[in-house]
């Protein structure tokens, strides 16, 4: 059963009709022209709906329960993948997966946040919210890749690092901070792709990279629309959605916003109707970008790579000089 989001409902009716017609066709009736007609109609409608998504609707697509997750991509883009586990200190965190792979014959370290699809798996993956040991596992794999000159690809998909007692006891802040600092100086190419939710520091801890891309309907933000609305508009769970829409809009968290701010390098197109409609096509699009980026980044010397990354990281920010008189402080 397909899951339809609110704004996808107009598609549901037509798609159900198409399904009915297909069954009558199998029974021998001539419905070809009607079927073609409806398929064209649904395709146009889908394109229209998805070209006009509001930021809040895009958040829902980014969190769509059928959207491909890190392992769905890994299975589709690698020739071979061997998962590596654990931080060698405390535990293995299933909310982050990582390992060695071959993509078109070349070695790549792939690391990503991992959400679960069934309820059981979602709980096992802690809803894709890592604990410190997840970030420390990632750092271990990053350092391993560096030692063997293997490029690193990270896939970003989390609503945020886990806010829990154990996470605080084991140094969630320190784990994230250490990754940020380490990634800024790692001597191999790093490519990051936001595939779903880029939720604040818990996302950024894997997303310090030479090239950063976002899938068309993914989001990347300092705070979730829910969190933002709760603080600024005093929205509580269960209150109407209008403030969530406003917050999502105000935060400027879509791929187009981030490209316009030049925080990301490019947007990766999704299949018509979103990545959840065709996992294979979404994976092909991502694979192409990964291969091209790695090829391009390999042309730089290590020194150039690190200098460019440092300049990219430290040039982000919008500030200005303020006159004393403007505040009457002189």
């Amino acid at each position, binding site marked *: 059963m397909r899951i339809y989001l609110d704004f996808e409902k107009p598609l549901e009716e037509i798609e159900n009709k198409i399904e009915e017609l297909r069954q009558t066709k199998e029974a021998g009736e001539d419905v070809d022209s009607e079927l073609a007609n409806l398929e064209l109609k649904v395709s146009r409608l889908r394109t229209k709906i998805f070209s006009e998504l509001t930021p809040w609707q895009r958040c829902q697509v980014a969190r769509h329960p059928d959207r491909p997750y890190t392992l769905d991509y890994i299975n589709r883009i690698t020739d071979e993948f061997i998962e590596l586990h654990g931080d060698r200190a405390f535990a293995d965190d299933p909310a982050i997966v990582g390992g060695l792979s071959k993509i078109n014959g070349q070695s790549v370290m792939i690391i990503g946040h991992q959400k679960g699809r069934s309820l059981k798996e979602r709980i096992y993956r802690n809803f894709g919210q890592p604990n410190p040991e997840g970030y420390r596992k990632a750092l271990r794999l990053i350092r391993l890749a560096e030692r063997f000159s293997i490029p690193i690809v990270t896939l970003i998909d989390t609503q945020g690092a886990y806010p829990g007692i154990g996470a605080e006891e084991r140094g*969630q802040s320190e784990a*994230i*901070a250490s990754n940020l600092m380490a990634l800024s100086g790692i001597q191999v190419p790093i490519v990051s792709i936001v595939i779903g939710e880029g939720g604040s520091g818990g996302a950024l801890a894997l997303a*310090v990279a030479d090239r950063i891309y976002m899938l068309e309907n993914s989001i990347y933000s*300092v705070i979730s629309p829910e969190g933002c609305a709760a*603080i600024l*508009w005093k929205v509580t769970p269960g209150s109407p959605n209008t403030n969530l829409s406003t917050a999502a809009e105000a935060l400027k968290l879509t791929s187009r916003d981030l490209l316009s701010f030049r925080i990301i390098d490019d947007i990766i197109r999704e299949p018509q109707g979103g990545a959840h409609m065709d996992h294979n096509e979404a994976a092909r699009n991502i694979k192409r970008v990964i291969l091209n980026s790695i090829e391009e980044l390999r042309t730089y010397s290590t020194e150039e790579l690190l200098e460019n990354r440092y300049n990219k990281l*430290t040039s982000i920010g919008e500030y200005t000089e303020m006159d*004393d008189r403007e505040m009457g402080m002189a």
Partner: protein
Amino acid sequence: MAWFKKTGDPETDKTVKIPQGLWVKCSSCKEIVYSKEFIKNLEVCPKCNYHSRIGAYTRINLLVDHESFSETNPNLVSADPLNFVDTISYKERLTISQEKSRLKETVVTGLASIKGIPISLVVMDFSFLGGSMGSAVGEKIVRAVNDAIVNEYPLVIFSSSGGARMQEGIFSLMQMSKISAAIGRLKEHSLPYLSVLTDPTFGGVSASFAMLGDIIIAEPKSLIGFAGARVISQTIKQKLPEHFQEAEFLLSHGLIDMIVDRKDMQKTITSLLIMLINR
């Protein structure tokens, strides 16, 4: 990052109002304290030793050699790249906070000496938009790190922050990696970085430069963490243990090097620097 509560509201629950009046109420133990005594005690509660939030310039005066502080980039302020508006516009919010706090931004940076040792100094001030980190904070700290590198000075940062400044959206998030990259460069130069955590240090600040100190010091009873207590208890639907996220909790979990009273801060920092730079 829902770890900061009431960002944008400088009047937060733990602010101890320094009075026109004769008495102040300690926000930690709720005892009433004679305000002269409180101020003489460096704004530390004489009953429970809670180190209340103090302004950046007050802290600088307590720490550095007399008249040794020269401020850098005093006029650098955040722009408004998102044109952010909630109940009021971000621009208005900045203006109001500037007037209320008499500060232009959350962070004060400069060069100073401490018992004759030159340092690059960064001090955050919670009274400006809850110490939140936006583009100006990121840029000023990166410049202070560069000042340390160019002059071969140690870096000392006092943190106090609710986290990222959400009115600057993704730009505020990216200050975490910006500053962390700069700290990485500092470490390549083998220059010491002392990080002092004061009440409160959370979110984007704790999860970046605050936790990257070569030595991490905290003031007694300061609340320090990644996520705010309210967000955690809502997520796990449990009551939090007593003294959760207090400096002493972090010390016992191995997350910081030491807890130092405000009155001993100058002496401790001086000794550490002398040992590290082997003077």
